[in-house]
């Protein structure tokens, strides 16, 4: 590991260029479920970033002592312990948000982003770069969550953080809330559009066309 690591690019790459959610399809499960309001999206982002950074640091520190055959179990146990700590903290100090997040905090354990990160990067790098990279990926995840969360809360209820931004029609304003924004389908649509937007600006991320028909059977002679 002689080459100098460029901390700045390790940190900022995952924001747009290598975004874990929109490019690598990691960690989508929780990204969509918790974005009905900005507050839950922000809590989830912070929890995930903390768990991810600490898990990457821990795994990287003991990376020379983990036998290869049981590394997945070791990593899952480390992540699960960190998630339990976060879950207990949320239940103790942010009871309301913790109820709104329901089981999704616990599901950070099986968030493919965390396991993918520890498996692919932290296992081969020193603690500091591993933590910087994990933090960057956490920020990339948070970026997507916050964009979708604020769009959904703004257009679904006309609020941000529970404060009225757009005056509602029923109380004398002009804005009629789009209740579809609070339902499941809109999260899929918004993330699809976000992927489209990012890939229009970064054409190199677009996927190659599939030329071969998937179910094509050679005609018999």
């Amino acid at each position, binding site marked *: 590991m002689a080459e100098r690591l460029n901390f700045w690019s390790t940190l900022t790459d995952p924001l747009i260029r290598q975004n874990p959610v*929109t490019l690598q*399809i*990691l*960690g*989508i*499960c*929780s*990204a*969509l*479920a918790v974005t009905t309001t900005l507050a839950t999206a922000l809590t989830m982002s912070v929890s995930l970033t903390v768990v991810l950074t600490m898990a990457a640091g821990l795994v990287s520190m003991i990376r020379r002592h983990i036998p290869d055959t049981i590394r*997945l*179990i070791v990593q*899952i*146990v480390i992540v*699960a*312990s960190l*998630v*339990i700590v976060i*879950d*207990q903290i949320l239940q103790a100090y942010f009871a309301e948000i913790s109820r709104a997040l*329901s*089981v999704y905090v*616990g*599901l950070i*354990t*099986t*968030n*493919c982003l965390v*396991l993918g990160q520890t498996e692919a990067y932290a296992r081969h790098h020193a603690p500091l770069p591993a933590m910087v990279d994990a933090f960057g990926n956490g920020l990339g995840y948070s970026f997507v969550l916050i964009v979708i969360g604020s769009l959904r809360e703004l257009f679904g209820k006309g609020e941000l953080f529970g404060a009225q931004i757009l005056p509602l029609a029923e109380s004398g304003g002009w804005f009629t809330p789009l209740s579809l924004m609070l*339902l*499941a*389908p*809109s*999260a*899929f*649509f918004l*993330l*699809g*559009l976000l*992927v*489209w*937007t*990012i*890939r*229009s600006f970064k*054409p190199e*991320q*677009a*996927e*190659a*066309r*599939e030329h071969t*028909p*998937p*179910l094509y059977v050679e005609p018999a002679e």
Partner: protein
Amino acid sequence: MTGLWDLFLTAAFVDNMPLTLFLGLCTFLALSKRPEAAFGLGVAMTGVMGVTVPLNHLIYQGLLAPGAWAWAGMPELDLSYLSLIAFIGVIAASVQVLELLLDRFLPSIHAAFGVFLPLLTVQCAILAGSLFMVERSYSLAESVVFGLGSGFGFAVAVAMLAAIRSRLAYADLPAGLRGLGIAFVLAGLMSLGFASFAQMVAAQ
């Protein structure tokens, strides 16, 4: 009996794991390019969820729930904070056992599953099934039905998405929308369709 049937329908269609609750989306999107792979994944999901949810129910009620150790003279012992680690362990172990059994007795099915089976350990939908079972305090029979229903709902959704996506492989899409982008839009449309199932069970 009707209660259990209602629970099955609710778990499979109203609270559909990937489309309504956003669970298991990583595999839902990654493995829905080919219908054969999607079908294998769906069957594996149903099997694993049907086993792990009741198993975790027994472990939670027997060892972890508040007051579970009352017979040993420790009525105030509450180990429920350990449930996350216990559930993950059970899921990893049962996936492993399932893999060994299939390999030994049904090697053709095992070969068809390929890499999907071990991947199920880190499937959020499976862990979520166990966590929902605790949150909604299902009984043993209910957790069997709930596990099978959720797995079945996942299988239906992933098979449908794969069918649509394999047709769309021919379509002339804008470059940025190809692959992941259109998959999200399709999932959104399917989710809109599944939202109408909400009335189906409620109306009964």
